[in-house]
């Protein structure tokens, strides 16, 4: 059973090819197991890399969508995370640095019948590919972007990334990095992304829940996944992973629930006097002042304010779905325009070639 709505089916030679493959190889198989999504390729991430746990989580989660694996496409850019498609028995393209959202846009816009996923990293998506990311988000093409954020360049062996904290000492910044980092969630919300979530690589349950909501969302969904690079930036997210400090500094986002967190719910989120949000001690405020999480607010300012609670050092990091609103998707609107044009004027190539002003030369 498909739990998510794939767009209108293909037609013409594309539909014929799909039909032929069903004839020769049987009906589309929509009840999958995780192992059905594995390939024969040896996984070549460094031992201990956070990417392994994300791969396992994705392979375990995707079958729950009830989509045949041939209807899934994973497009990646360049970087450690971008090796992802090779390990997934779906269609895939390991493309070039930063361009995966643009490639996926062309695919998703012309094939609304597919489930298209982009796997990217903090350098790929936010540095070289920043332009494509923001435009994909504002356009709202039906594709899902998994942004593995390890706050470092891994494949090029350890330079700072656009999400590295200021002062980061790396091979290219021996005296500490100078540039202020992006907060990917803030950036996405600034680009008016309809769906933005954040999860931790090691938190299978939380990650799966965010992925599920992203998959069910119609339109572009961005999921930032904190991912540990144990070679060049080990322990980057330990503050949030450690059972003690994690409870203290993570703010779980549950739609409809008050934003209370910390040991024994000691901390909470309330509105500040400027329309933003601030952290308060739960026992110092009236229960009615505590913000109840609402991911469906049309106005992105609330979600943006949530994203600004956390600082570079990861204290007060909201985890979960920041925003999930429905907007018309680009691919659907594009298909509708094609359909509208077809209905209003049948395609007559001869008439098109002739145009409005012709003359005839007789023999």
């Amino acid at each position, binding site marked *: 059973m498909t739990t998510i709505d794939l767009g209108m089916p293909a037609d013409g030679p*594309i539909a014929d*090819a799909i039909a032929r493959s069903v004839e020769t190889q049987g009906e589309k198989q929509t009840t999958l197991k995780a192992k059905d999504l594995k390939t024969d390729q040896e996984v070549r991430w460094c031992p201990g890399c956070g990417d392994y746990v994300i791969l396992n989580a994705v392979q375990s989660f995707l079958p729950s969508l009830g989509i045949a694996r041939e209807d899934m496409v994973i497009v990646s850019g360049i970087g450690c995370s971008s090796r992802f*498609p090779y390990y997934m028995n779906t269609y895939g*393209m390991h493309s070039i640095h930063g361009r995966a959202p643009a490639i996926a846009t*062309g695919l998703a816009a012309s094939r609304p019948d597919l489930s298209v996923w982009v796997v990217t990293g903090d350098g790929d998506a936010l540095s070289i590919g920043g332009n494509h990311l923001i435009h994909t988000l504002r356009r709202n093409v039906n594709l899902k972007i998994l942004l593995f954020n390890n706050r470092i360049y891994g494949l090029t062996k350890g330079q700072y990334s656009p999400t590295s904290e200021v002062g980061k000492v790396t091979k290219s910044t021996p005296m500490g990095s100078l540039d202020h980092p992006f907060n990917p969630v803030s950036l996405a919300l600034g680009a008016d992304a309809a769906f933005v979530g954040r999860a931790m690589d090691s938190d299978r349950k939380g990650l799966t829940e965010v992925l599920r909501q992203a998959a069910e969302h119609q339109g572009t969904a961005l999921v930032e996944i904190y991912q540990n690079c144990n070679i060049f930036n080990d322990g980057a997210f330990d503050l949030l992973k450690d059972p003690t400090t994690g409870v203290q500094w993570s703010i779980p986002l549950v739609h409809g629930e008050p934003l209370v967190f910390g040991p024994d719910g000691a901390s909470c989120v309330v509105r500040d006097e400027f329309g933003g949000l601030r952290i308060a001690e739960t026992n110092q405020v009236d229960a009615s002042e505590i913000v109840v999480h609402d991911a469906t607010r049309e106005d992105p300012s609330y979600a943006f304010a949530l994203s600004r609670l956390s600082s570079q050092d990861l204290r007060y990091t909201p985890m979960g779905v920041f925003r999930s609103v429905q907007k018309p998707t680009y691919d659907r609107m594009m298909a509708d325009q*094609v359909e509208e044009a077809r209905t209003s004027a049948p395609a007559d190539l001869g008439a098109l070639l002739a145009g409005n002003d012709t003359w005839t030369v007789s023999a």
Partner: protein
Amino acid sequence: MTTTDPSVAASTAGGSTPFVKSVVELDRVVIRLAGDSGDGMQLTGNRFTSETASFGNDLSTLPNFPAEIRAPTGTLPGVSSFQLHFADHDIMTPGDAPDVLVAMNPAALKANLSDLPGGGLLIVDADEFTPRNLAKVGYAVNPLEDGSLDGWQLVSVPLTTLTLEALADSGLGKKEAERSKNMFTLGLLSWMYHRPTEGTVRFLERQFRRKPEIAAANIAAFRAGYNYGDTTEAFAVSYEIKPAPMAPGRYRNISGNQALALGIVAAGQRSGLPVFLGAYPITPASDILHELSRHKSFGVRTFQAEDEIAGIASAIGASFGGALGVTTTSGPGVSLKSEALGLAIMTELPLVVVDVQRGGPSTGLPTKTEQSDLLQAMFGRNGEAPVPVVAPRSPADCFDAALEAARIALTYRTPVMLLSDGYLANGAEPWQIPDVEELPDLSVEFATEPNAATPDGTPEFQPYLRDPETLARPWAIPGTSGMQHRIGGLEKADKTGNISYDPANHDLMTRLRQAKVDGIAASIGPTDVDDPDGNASVAVIGWGSTYGPIGAACRRIRRSGRSVAQIHLRHLNPFPADLGEVLRRYDRVICPEMNLGQLSMLLRAKYLVDVESHTQVRGLPFRAAELAAVVQDVIDSTTGGTQ
């Protein structure tokens, strides 16, 4: 009386019968309309062209306009012009020099007068020659009054005043009414050259259907201009240029960008595939995007991307999904697309990359023509990255060239560079409308079944197992069961397409990709050689839009009793298989190009033939007379040396 020189005709006829209108028959005329970029010269030129086309003359046009949308009014940088050559016979170029120059203001006069041969007809809007406008372009004295234009047949007409008078009852304000003076001028020219007028009236009604008062004013100005010509003593002569004999059939007038866009629509229809265009606006290619965006009923999806890279990247994504992916741009955009083009080469997906070349490098001359992206198309990528290159030779040929590029892309599963240029893009000519059924069949077969087996006999799909004849790899699209595979920019293992760093495999794959492109030569036929008497010892070789000027130059040379061969290359990569042999047939081979010798470099490197380069990069097409002189010198020195 028939003459090829309207100036002679005008003075003779005008001098003898000043008050009786006479009609002089000409075999060809070149008219240049020049004005401020806000004067509507391009529109006027296009309308005159349409009238001329529907009358049945052969024609060729050369629009020439500044990159600025509204350069300061009345200044030299703001001058926009439109040249039209039409004839009662088959012509190949927009003409070297105008016979008639219409200058709508002092700037237009100053910028264009040097191109008008002595004795040529010069029509100016006298109203615009005000002290202020004269000062703007550095005329100390009004040239209409100081005798400096005595060498030309000057007809000074108060076009603005006449237009305002004609529209006195239109209810329009002065400023709005003045804007119709281009239609007054068009009316006058339509009278002078016996053009049919119904098409323009229909056009104006259509164009301004939501502003009927504007439509009425323009039509009134157009008719007033026509009647003015008919009644004024200023014009004693009108000219007749009979229709040109053309092959029987139905014709239309078409520009290169239009033809190219229609070629892409046709490629989609003839392949049955949806067309996906990913493009970023850029001069002079944007009109292809505009045109294609109007044809959604043909399943054409157009995507205005955030940048040039996203334009090609989205097209690659669409091709992966089974569409005919297309991206359109000009030279600077090709630079940005280079890396993605490499990805298309590596993933071996069909893709048509249209480069409407303009003056370079960098931003260069955005609205001027050049053919200096040939080597970029050939080699402008990292690694050994061969790409087939196809170039149209005339505006109408852009249609066939687009179909040919699509054919190669779909058959060989490769990106193809289609090199048009600014002159072809904006220039126009009559086009015999093809019969849809006779267009090439471009249907493709997607892979839907395993094509190999694992060692244990399990059927499997190998995405890089090639067709033995074309070396194309199978095109299996997402959605087809059992064919899941991963492609990408990393080197692929032969057949399986898995990542491979094996040295021998990389050597093999590099040679296979090259061999695939080289093998296209088997499908393109022999070199196109025009050597009517078969006696030529000198050949002129060209590619792209120089076809017209080279052809016209060769005709001139032949008319002088000499022999010369014209070799034209439509395929720049690979070259036709017999090209080396063809080149070696001639004592001398001359290669005129609008660059610094890019094709000649390729020919010399590949065939060790001493190809002589003749180049110009003036942002304008070659003049046939100049080319003829160059080639004629070579012929005379060659035959002189051998006799």
